[in-house]
């Protein structure tokens, strides 16, 4: 089964709530890697499953296996500087923001359909999957870019 939708990994929140271990969503050492349509997201993954895997990864010149570090995802290269802000509402909204992705001089020949933010901790736990849609995307000595609508990767409605 291919993947067809964006989603949040249960481990990304499940690691925080017990306060025994926590994925830091904003670390510069976190990475973003690309996959083909053959990948199957498992958003129910716990910290010990569904980790980063190379099986369906899309790589190439300028986009190494394992993905590009958050600290180098913006033009320059520079960090996309992910951060959380709160909109007081009501409803109260928790926003995960970042600068746009722009990685220059890439050649990614295998059609990519989506990508994942993941942490190197916990054996490589995934945080969130971003589904691009379409019929797959390739670059040739060019820039791979993602623009976030309103500078937001995702938001959480907290009620109120």
């Amino acid at each position, binding site marked *: 089964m291919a993947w067809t939708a964006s989603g949040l990994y249960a481990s990304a929140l499940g690691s925080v709530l017990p306060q025994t271990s926590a994925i830091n969503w904003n670390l510069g050492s976190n990475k973003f890697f690309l996959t083909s349509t053959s990948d199957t997201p498992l958003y129910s993954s716990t910290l010990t499953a569904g980790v980063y895997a190379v099986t369906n990864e899309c790589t190439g010149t300028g986009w190494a296996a394992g993905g590009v570090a958050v600290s180098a995802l913006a033009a320059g290269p520079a960090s996309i500087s992910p951060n959380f802000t709160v909109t007081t509402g009501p409803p109260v909204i928790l926003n995960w923001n970042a600068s746009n992705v722009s990685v220059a001089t890439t050649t990614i020949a295998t059609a990519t359909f989506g990508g994942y933010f993941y942490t190197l901790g916990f054996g490589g736990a995934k945080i969130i999957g971003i589904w691009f849609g379409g019929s797959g*995307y390739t*670059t040739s000595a*060019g*820039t791979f870019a993602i*623009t976030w609508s309103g500078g*937001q990767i995702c938001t959480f*409605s907290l009620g109120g």
Partner: protein
Amino acid sequence: MAEVDLDKLRSIGYLSRGRTMSRTRSGREHPESGKPYKVTRDECGNDVTEHGAAGSGLSDRQDVTIHAETLHFGLDQQAGG
């Protein structure tokens, strides 16, 4: 009773390329000396930009820009809770 042109009726609302086909625009980075480029925006709103050397086609470089929509997750109380 006036005659009805069936061919005209059939053409009403007809979109030759559909509502979700890719849209393309092209140009030059500089009107006279710049490299030509062609941007194709697909049905998902993402852009593929092909660049070429002046006068030699559009195969030298290809950029991709994903226009990601914000993902919205709900952690708020549901009705009846």
